[in-house]
């Protein structure tokens, strides 16, 4: 599959594309594994959302960009770009929905020093002044 354009082009460009793809895929894997470790070890739901956001944004984008370099100018790269755009819009939306559900249920963030018990009780009833 990567040898599709190797008949006409020089092999130097293939080596460069392989190196770029290695760098992108390995850095994407690094961010995905880092986000998963943060998902296990962080102490709170809000801080675990930070780790999940690391997986959703930078890890997925770098990984799929590395696959796009490997795919070349084909329909595969178009579909991978569609996946990147879709994750770019749906991941903050689902994170916002989860955080909104957490705030409306009155779940307290213990890592941010929010240890005041009465302030959060009235926070759950008031809505945002839109």
């Amino acid at each position: 599959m990567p040898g599709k354009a190797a008949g006409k082009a020089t092999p130097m460009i293939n080596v460069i594309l392989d190196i770029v793809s290695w760098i992108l895929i390995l850095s994407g894997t690094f961010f995905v594994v880092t986000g998963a470790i943060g998902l296990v070890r962080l102490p709170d739901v809000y801080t675990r959302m930070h780790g999940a956001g690391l997986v959703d944004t930078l890890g997925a984008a770098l990984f799929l960009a590395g696959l796009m370099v490997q795919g070349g100018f084909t329909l595969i790269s178009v579909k991978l770009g569609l996946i990147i755009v879709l994750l770019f819009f749906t991941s903050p939306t689902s994170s916002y929905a989860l955080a909104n559900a957490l705030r409306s249920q009155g779940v307290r963030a213990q890592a941010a020093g929010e240890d005041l018990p009465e302030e959060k009780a009235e926070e759950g009833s008031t809505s945002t002044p839109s």
Partner: protein
Amino acid sequence: MMFIAGTAGLAAAIILGLVRALLGPTLYDRVLVVNSIGTMTVLMIAVLGFLMGRPEFMDIALLYALINFIGTIAVLKFFRYGDMARPGGRHIAREGGGEGDADD
């Protein structure tokens, strides 16, 4: 070779996410882990399509990304309202006189 490295990293990340899903104290931890594992599964389907030489897997990955988003929103709505057919939003549910909301 780079695809095998990416697949191994994604498998390790999915196993770590499963650890948090088993340990997670509340429902929202598990919803968060389901969303995150869904994103990792999209990446894994894409890289397996390259590894096996089947480019049709990109369509499946695109569809899985859509279903992952819809599923997260649906689970959150179900556990907030207890009903999937209820209109979302507090002010809409209060002033809109629908057919089925006899409990308001």
